[in-house]
């Protein structure tokens, strides 16, 4: 349709506006979403019974029963409650599912998604006033609210509206539809991830405000629940605040972890024999469910390797065999517990992968891989090496290290070590540990980069022959005096990747200083990949 009309359009249209004019016709045909009602303040489509609730959260029976007693029978007022516990201990999901079981209406706001006071306030008001952001109202909230004073006034209005509707429902309790309605006349506000509020700008007023909200509102039909990672004593305030009722979720014990990890496994017997072997050593490192389940996944695959039939129930003999097969993999895998795999997926890299596996098998003792497992352009690699050298070496040595002879030989300068110089060496080592890498200005970095690239005898491998970028870089590096703008772009992308951090500017010089953040291992890997003799340029004290 638009292709026929386009000759008639005299002014230039962008692709976006042309697309929009097409969509305008479609949106009117799209099904309008139902307006929200008080029944939508419930969680989950179907209610669950208490046994289902307790069985779906192993090891949390005590917490569930106690939390339900804190909430109390229907229509009983409650003190504000502060639920705290470590990460992935099930706080949010248990609280939400308790509300699903009790079928009481609530409003949920998480301080992860609501990252500023305005968004937090507007999200709560939208939910209470049953407002859905959609195309028709331009995805705006029902009221603009960024100050706590406005929030309190609007909240009072909204809460009285919802409570009024709930009271009306309660009076019609005998009708058939009542089974789908929420229970009771109380509304609950749940604030999740409250510890993130401590990092907001206005946290010194917002936190006491939220904690005092119950006393400010003075409405007994409202219940407040705060969920946080840290306990109340980490919330500092000058003049204090009204303390809510604390409730602690302890981390899972080993037995609970075993039950949780077994829950969704297909072959429970096999997995349980696997856990017998692995769970205890891994629990010495971390007891968080999310970290354990990701760490155990590759190990389980290895455990099942000798088995022909994955559905088999292992007997003692098989268990011993499987353990024997797995044993030498446990220790290295413990040291990789938190490793996030780079996840190369392209077909070309699969051959690289096999090659790498060969190298790894040869160096079985070393736990880290021998090569870089992510891709960087060649000029970025040289830039990284230059930054590392600039941070490590004192500036006064630059002239001698990077002279035209291509780097002096450090061995010439080695003195015989006497007791005093050994002591000096120790103190300087200690200093290096404590102080960290030094800062350098941009000019020094570019000077070193120019030196390195003019001297480097880099020839790309067969692997990189198809890499156009590699060829392009070869061209610029042969030209010794030329530094293109792409180098500065590479610098800013290295900064974004946190390999180099940009420090504050020195007030005298007025230029920004940079600092390299990478470890020596990574730079060694990078240097190896471009065949750069790093040790010649590294200043050893």
């Amino acid at each position, binding site marked *: 349709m638009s292709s026929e009309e386009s000759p008639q359009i005299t002014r230039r249209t962008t692709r976006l506006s042309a697309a929009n004019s097409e969509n305008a016709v479609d949106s009117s045909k799209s099904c309008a979403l139902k307006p929200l009602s008080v029944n939508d303040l419930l969680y989950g489509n179907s209610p669950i019974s208490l046994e289902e609730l307790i069985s779906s959260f192993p090891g949390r029976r005590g917490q569930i029963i106690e939390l339900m007693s*804190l909430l109390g*029978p229907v229509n*009983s007022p409650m*003190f504000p409650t502060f639920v705290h516990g470590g990460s992935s201990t099930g706080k949010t999901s248990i609280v939400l599912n308790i509300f699903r079981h009790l079928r009481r209406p609530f409003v949920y706001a998480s301080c992860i998604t609501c990252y500023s006071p305005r968004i937090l306030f507007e999200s709560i008001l939208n939910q209470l006033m049953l407002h859905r952001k959609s195309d028709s109202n331009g995805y705006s909230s029902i009221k603009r609210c960024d100050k706590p004073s406005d929030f309190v006034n609007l909240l009072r209005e909204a809460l009285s509206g919802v409570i009024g509707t709930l009271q009306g429902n309660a009076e019609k309790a005998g009708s058939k539809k009542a089974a789908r309605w929420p229970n009771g006349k109380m509304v609950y506000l749940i604030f999740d991830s409250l510890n993130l509020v401590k990092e907001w700008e206005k946290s010194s007023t917002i936190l006491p405000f939220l904690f005092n909200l119950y006393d400010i509102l003075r409405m007994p039909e409202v219940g407040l629940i705060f969920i946080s990672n840290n306990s109340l004593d980490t919330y500092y305030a000058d003049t204090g605040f009204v303390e809510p009722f604390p409730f*602690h979720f302890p981390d899972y014990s080993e037995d609970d972890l075993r039950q949780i990890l077994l829950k969704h496994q297909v072959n429970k017997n096999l997995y349980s024999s696997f856990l017998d072997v692995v769970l205890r050593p891994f629990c010495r490192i971390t007891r968080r469910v999310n970290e354990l389940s990701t760490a155990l996944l590759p190990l389980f695959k290895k455990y099942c390797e000798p088995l022909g039939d994955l559905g088999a129930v292992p007997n003692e003999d098989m268990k011993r065999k499987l353990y024997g097969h797995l044993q030498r993999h446990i220790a290295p895998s413990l040291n990789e517990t*938190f490793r996030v795999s780079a996840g190369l997926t392209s077909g070309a890299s699969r051959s690289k992968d096999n090659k790498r596996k060969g190298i790894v098998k040869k160096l079985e003792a070393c736990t880290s891989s021998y090569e870089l497992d992510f891709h960087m352009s060649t000029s970025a690699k040289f830039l990284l090496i230059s930054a590392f050298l600039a941070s490590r070496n004192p500036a006064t040595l630059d002239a001698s290290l990077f002279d035209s002879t291509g780097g002096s030989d450090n061995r010439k300068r080695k003195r015989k070590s006497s007791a005093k110089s050994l002591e000096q060496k120790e103190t300087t080592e200690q200093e290096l540990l404590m102080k960290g890498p030094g800062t350098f200005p941009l000019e020094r970095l570019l000077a070193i980069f120019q030196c390195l690239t003019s001297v480097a005898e880099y020839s790309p491998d067969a692997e990189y022959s198809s890499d156009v970028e590699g060829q392009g870089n070869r061209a610029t590096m042969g030209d010794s005096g030329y530094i293109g703008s792409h180098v500065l772009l590479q610098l800013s992308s290295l900064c974004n990747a946190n390999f180099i951090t940009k420090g504050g500017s020195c007030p005298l010089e007025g230029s920004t200083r940079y600092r390299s953040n990478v470890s020596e291992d990574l730079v060694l890997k990078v240097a190896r990949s471009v065949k750069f003799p790093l040790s010649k340029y590294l200043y050893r004290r």
Partner: protein
Amino acid sequence: MGLKNPAEQAVILLRSRLCNPNFIFTLFSDSPDSNYSKLKYIISSSVTESCNNSVLLLGPRGCGKLAVLELVLEDLLREFPDMISVIKLNGLLHSDDNCALKEIARQLCLEHQLAFSKMASSDENSQFLIAMLRECGLAHKTVLFVLDEFDLFAQGKQRLLYSLLDAMQSVTSQAVVIGVSCRLDADQLLEKRVRSRFSHRKLLFLPPSREDLQRLLEHALLLPSGSDLPHEFVANFNSKLLNIFADKKFKDIMDTVFNTDSTFKQVLTFLFSALCHLDLKRGFLSVENFKDALSNIQRQPKLECLKDCSILELYILVCMKRLEVREHETCNFNSIMKEYKSIHDSFQTTDYYARDVCRRAFEHLLRRELISFLDNRGHGHSIEFRPVKLLISWQELYQGLKSYGSCPAILYKLVERETTT
């Protein structure tokens, strides 16, 4: 309304009592020298004599300042129906002057059924305020300003306080300013010109005495006979409760509560927790409920945090403690790793993990706030070089290790050894 379990009804009734501060403080309003009567006298005398006044209510949090004020205001509104209008401001919400003026204007409009425009500027609002004060003065109506969190109004330039107190100086206005604050030196925060216009009346609110506490218990927990609960249930409940009050174990529990923190808020939280532990099937409170409530309010958060740590994290904490004992002024992740390696070398522990794993455990500890960075300025540095400090003391660490359960013996030895040397 279906037939509810009488225990459930009783629980709902008691919970609504505990969550309603007005109910609790009516108990303390009868004696003549209580804060209630003094406050009532001050305000009612300024209402009847048509004069201006100001008073500060001071006291620690949870001692009933605002609750007593609410009771007084309720009574006065009943006694002098058309002669009082109340404006309530809160320092947490309205410490900004523009916000405060807007809120005052909104409340005045609400009370006198005038149309309120949100677009009015603060100049217009302040003119409106002055005009209203004049009109109310001429009509012999007193305006009461309640300023909660008074110390937060005293930050910055104190323009609102000055304009309010200044407006009160004119002959035609009749206003009373009541400030409520938990800072006992709130009046020292005022500027000279504000303080000179402020009458230095202060009422001090203190936590209750032991006898008052006993009266509070009975007032709050004994079921009334006039409610619609079955009579014999009420009689049973009350008699069981009085037995508990006379029990020695209960008296010990109450002494502990009183000695740790005897503010009203804490006692009410204690009673609330005891009510939550009430077994609905039995239907009556017991001493065990109060014992459970006591352990609920006597939390040791750092100890709980330590119990949640993994063994690697405990190693890191012990390394930091050893470095601290050796008087290294600052330590960072690298020096902790050096110490960790030296422990492994000298004691041949089985728990020696790679640097990446230790760094992650270090980050977990930071998240739990058992350790923290020394300063926030070092954002440029990577996490390995920023200096950190321990946020728990040696005793807490030692107690945590003892109650850990499967803690390796080497950690006890390391922590113990440092204290004896």
